[in-house]
């Protein structure tokens, strides 16, 4: 028990003191914090985070936001999340904790999918056209990037495709380039990271390298 806590529990305040106390926001928050910490014993802080993750559902929650909510440091919060992640990795659980795009959320495990199909009678999967994929790939690897640069790379107009991808929330506008005409720059979104199972963009597969010298090493020589 901290001194402040003893003070709160064991002391009966006069009317004036109560008023002074109520008018002092810093004291109020301190007490609030102590109350919260009482609930959040080391053992069940994980349970609290777990519950929060359940509530946020497919919106997910960022590490920073969560740390602020539970009033812990980023490092501590990350450890807690790591623990939950490890726990749910076990095959006795049907959901797992992922952090695609550094956004933490619970999703059902792959093995559940056939049963979900059975339950919902839906087999419809979202698809992406080849041109959508190529456009996304170019943006992901070269972001921020302008429409003209994308068009130059693919050799086709990208206007409609960019609008579609914006509408699907897979890309977003990210300011303007300093090039003449100040064209809009595009970046991929967290939704993209989630859809493509990426924690960070560093995880993108390496671009294949075509080296003329290697290719010319003649097999028949």
């Amino acid at each position, binding site marked *: 028990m901290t001194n402040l806590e003893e003070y709160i529990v064991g002391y009966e305040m006069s009317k004036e003191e109560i008023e002074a106390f109520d008018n002092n926001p810093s004291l109020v928050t301190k007490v609030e914090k102590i109350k919260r910490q009482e609930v959040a014993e080391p053992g069940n802080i994980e349970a609290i985070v777990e519950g929060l993750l359940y*509530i946020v*559902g497919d919106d997910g929650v960022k590490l920073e936001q969560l740390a602020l909510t539970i009033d812990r440091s980023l490092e501590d919060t990350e450890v807690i999340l790591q623990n939950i992640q490890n726990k749910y990795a076990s095959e006795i659980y049907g959901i797992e904790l992922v952090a695609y795009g550094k956004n933490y959320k619970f999703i*059902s495990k792959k093995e559940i999918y056939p049963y979900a199909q059975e339950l919902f009678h839906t087999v419809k*999967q979202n698809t992406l056209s080849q*041109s959508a994929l*190529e456009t996304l790939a170019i943006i992901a690897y070269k972001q921020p990037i302008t429409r003209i640069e994308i068009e130059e790379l*693919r050799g086709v107009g990208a206007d409609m495709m960019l609008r579609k991808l914006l509408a699907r929330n897979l890309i977003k506008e990210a300011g303007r380039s300093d090039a003449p005409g100040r064209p809009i720059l595009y970046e991929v979104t967290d939704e993209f990271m989630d*859809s493509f199972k990426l924690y960070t963009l560093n995880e993108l597969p390496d671009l294949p390298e075509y080296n003329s010298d290697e290719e010319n090493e003649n097999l028949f020589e």
Partner: protein
Amino acid sequence: MGFTVETMRFEGPLDLMLHLIHEKELDIFDLDMEVLTDQYIKYLHEMENLQLEVESEYLVELASLIEYKSKKLLPKPQEDLNDEYEEDPKDRLVKRLLEYQKYKEVSSLLYENYLDRQDQLSKPVSYEQVVKNSSFEDQKLEGNPYDLLKAMSKVLRRIQLSKPFETKLAAKEISTEDRILQIKARLIDLPETFNFDTLLDDCRSLHECIVTFLAVLDMAKDHFLIFTIDNEDKIWFKRGLEHD
């Protein structure tokens, strides 16, 4: 027969060129522009023969291919070494093709991830949270049709998630005989007189309404029901002689 329509879908002129290079086994690092140009033109002609619209992007690349070809035919002007170095259009094309090929290849890798991810589902954010985060007044009233599109697809998705079981409403056809039995069973609970609309309560399709109508016609014929039509065109029923 002799009827072969090959519809190859290309993502653009670069995609088409890569296909031609692969098909004709050309060396991309030592590109035979002549063969490529000929094949390219041949393909565009075929597209026109099939009444397919040749998109302008293909024509732009065609123009640069032909420009390259015509330059080769003309005698070379005296090269001035002091001239600014200009990249050989062929090298430039090869560079573009290679660059494009990279993204084309990697996009199929990414697609695997994309499809994989869809096998894993999550639940929508809890209702409390939605209410709290969505005070309408706080939001600026602006947006374009694409924002609407985005919002609508979100709405549809939520509806789909909230009513998963209703996605399967198999159209089940019911026979007039079965419907008569159903109505007879319901008569017990119905008041002495009732109207046709009451009988339609449990109908979910036009088909069921029609079957219900046929059923009451049959029942009226058998004097099981007596009907009358009021001045509002409502059909009222009364139980008739019960003979079975």
